């Protein structure tokens, strides 16, 4: 098995784990959202790199070309990007409301406040 044949999956995995780590280990909500969006982007890269066929061209039909990259993942990710940005916006709006209600966006401080009564 060739190392470079699976290289794209490992890059994706590395990015995904970076996102996951930020999500778990950091207490700041904005940073958590950033981690989530890195996680999300790694999935985009995963799909798009799966769609690539060596020697193929972009899926726009031309005369005399037989080999195209797979259009289906492109469609899925195209919509996913726009959906992703709107859900990120929703999350940021929630964070802003949390800031307004608690005065902080650090996870542990909010927990401390909730436990106080």
């Amino acid at each position, binding site marked *: 098995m060739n190392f470079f044949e699976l290289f794209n999956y490992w890059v994706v995995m590395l990015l995904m784990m970076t996102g996951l780590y930020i999500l778990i280990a950091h207490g700041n909500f904005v940073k958590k959202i950033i981690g989530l969006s890195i996680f999300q982007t790694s999935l985009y890269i995963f799909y798009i790199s799966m769609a690539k066929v060596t020697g193929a061209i972009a899926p726009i039909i031309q005369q005399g070309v037989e080999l195209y990259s*797979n259009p289906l993942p492109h469609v899925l990710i195209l919509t996913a990007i726009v959906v992703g940005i709107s859900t990120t916006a929703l999350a940021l709006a929630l964070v802003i409301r949390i800031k307004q209600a608690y005065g902080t966006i650090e996870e542990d401080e909010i927990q401390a406040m909730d436990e106080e009564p």
Partner: protein
Amino acid sequence: MFAIVRMHDLFAIVMLLSIYGFLCASFFMVMDAVDVAFTEAAVGIGISTLLLLSALTLTGRFEKKQRHKPLLAVFSVAITASLLIYGTLQMPPFGSAYAPAHQHIATHYITQSLGETGIINIVTSVLASYRGYDTLGELIVIFTAGMGVLVLLRGATSPAKDSEGKSKRVTSKQPVPMKQHAILRIVSKMLIPLILLFALYVQFHADFGPGGGFQAGVIFASVIILYVMIFGLRATQKTISLAWLEFLSALGVLIFGSVGLLSLLFGENFLDYNMLSSDPVQAQHLGIFVVEIGVGITVAATIILIFMTFTGRMADRGGQQ
């Protein structure tokens, strides 16, 4: 990339994220996904950076230092990573034309879509016709997210304003930002019509090249956002009011959905465009065109709406302090 994990200055992190978005867009270009690269370029570099920045102005720039050691997180991440690596060992090699993902329905799209829809760009025909149902669902998600932002950020401020007895949004004197930056103002004045034209080109050129409602929507939205940043929110709201944007973002979903219902009325399946004209290819073409317009309107209006709500919030805060 890993600087993002370590740094505590969120502003710098957002800037790095923008560079990362640009790299992603270039990568998608190399991977033949031109439509996706378009969208990521507008969303990843422009809009997400701006939204994060405006959220930062409202929540504070610096992250607090961690008090506990993130050993548990490292541990769980390592386990997940090793499982994923184990999973990739069975994956088809990169670039292989024989991967399972390319076998099932993708071949049908590639070989048949030109004959069935008459559209050169396969991505467009799959998006708007074969998987129209999906796209409608996603459009509704976007619309709902936009409404959610509105409810969260605007609905919450109004009771507070009522108790103070006056509306901050109207009374607060927001100085026009960037008044001193003559170069920015003049250059953007020249650029804005050109980018608008480009967005429309992307919208209507979807049949022949990379483009479509999603891409055009985000490009269109980014122009308006540029205008808001340079000339201020109030100048923009003279032209495009929030009520109009709300109406437009619903209108797009309505257009999409009513095309689907129209085909139901004619006894076809939901979102089957064949009844729109006597010639099925022509009908598909028309259906895709209308649906893409619906998508474009909703995406553009929702994203502008989200951005304006964020900036409106900032202006409110500026007025109170």
